[in-house]
C-alpha cells in the first residue's frame, strides 16, 4: 500500500515535470495519432491535450509534410534508431509564432527535433516521441553573423 503511494507520487511529479519542461513532447502511434501532447505544445499551438489526444497529426496540422515525416520516422519505428531534424535544414515542423513581441525578432519559432523510439512492455516499438526544442535564439544569432 505504501509502495503504491510512493509510486503514485512519482507519477505525479513526472506529470508535473512533463507539464513544466520547456521542450515540446509529442507521442505518436504508428498511424500518427497523437497520444501525448504536453503543455509546451498546448501553449504554443493553442490546442489542448484533450483536443489533441487521439487526433491524427496530419489532419490537425495539414502544413506538416506527411511523406517527409513518415520517411524520417520509418527507421525509428523499424530499426529503433533516433532520427533528427535540424533548423538549418528545416526551420520548423510545427509552425509556432514567435511569442516575444518586444525582443523577439523571428517571425516563427525555429526548431530542432529528436525523434526517439518508445518500447512497450513486450519490447515492440509501437510509439515514438517527438522532442521539440526551441532554438530561435541560436538561429537568430547565427543568422545575424556576417
Amino acid at each position, binding site marked *: 500500500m505504501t509502495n503504491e503511494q510512493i509510486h503514485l507520487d512519482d507519477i505525479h511529479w513526472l506529470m508535473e515535470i512533463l507539464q513544466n519542461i520547456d521542450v515540446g513532447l509529442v507521442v505518436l502511434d504508428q498511424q500518427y495519432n497523437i497520444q501525448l501532447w504536453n503543455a509546451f505544445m498546448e501553449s504554443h499551438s493553442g490546442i489542448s491535450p484533450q483536443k489533441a489526444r487521439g487526433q491524427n497529426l496530419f489532419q490537425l496540422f495539414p502544413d506538416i509534410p506527411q511523406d517527409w515525416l513518415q520517411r524520417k520516422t520509418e*527507421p525509428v519505428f523499424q530499426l529503433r534508431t533516433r532520427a533528427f531534424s535540424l533548423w538549418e535544414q528545416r526551420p520548423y515542423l510545427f509552425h509556432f509564432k514567435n511569442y516575444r513581441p518586444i525582443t523577439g525578432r523571428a517571425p516563427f519559432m525555429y526548431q530542432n527535433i529528436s525523434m526517439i523510439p518508445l518500447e512497450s512492455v513486450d519490447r515492440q516499438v509501437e510509439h515514438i516521441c517527438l522532442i521539440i526544442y526551441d532554438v530561435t535564439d541560436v538561429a537568430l544569432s547565427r543568422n545575424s553573423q556576417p
Partner: protein
Amino acid sequence: MTPTAAVTLNEAQRDCYQEIANVAMGQAADRLARLLDVYVELPIPRVNLIEASDLHMALQEARNDEGLSAVCQGFIGSGIAGEALLIFNDTSVQDLAALLNYQGQRSPWTTEELLLDVSSLLTGACINGIGDQLGIHFNQGLPEIIGRGRNAAEILQSGPYPWHKTLAIEIHYSVEHMNIDCTLLLLFTEDSVPKLNKKIDFLLD
C-alpha cells in the same frame, strides 16, 4: 598520476574492443542493408589509442580523398562520453541520394538531410550495439554537419584539443557494386577510457 597515464590498452582489451565493435557494426550494417536493400561489406574494425596530434594522420590515413563530407554526433551514457565522426566522400553522397530516391519525394530533401539521416542511423545503431554489450544506455545527441566538400585536414581544423591521448574505433563501410563508402570514427573522451577499460576487464574475467 596524471589523467594521461591512465589511458592504456593491453592486447586482451584491444581484442575485446574489436570484438564488441565488430558485433555492433554488424548490427548497424544490417540496418543499413535493410533500409537500402543492398549488401554492405564490412572489414575488421581498427582499435587504437591515438594522440591528439595524430588525429589528422589517423583521419587522413582513413580518407585521403579530397571532397569529403563529415557529420559529428556526441553520445554519453554512464559517465562515458564520446563523439562519432562519419566521413563520406562526395560521390558516395550522390549515390546514396540516388539509392534512397529522396529526390522523388514531394517535399524536397536536401543533401544535408540525407547526410544527417544516414549518419544518425549508422552512428545510432553502432553506439546502441556497443552499449547493449557493455550494459550502457547511450544518449545520442543531435548531429551536426562539420564539413562539405573538404579534405581531412580542413575538417579537423578545430584543434588543439583538450585531451592528449584517447581511444579510437575506426569502422569502414562500403556498399557492393556501388560507389558508396564511408568511415565511422568513434572517439571517446580521455576520462572515459579507464571507465570503459573497467567494463571490458569485467567482460574478460
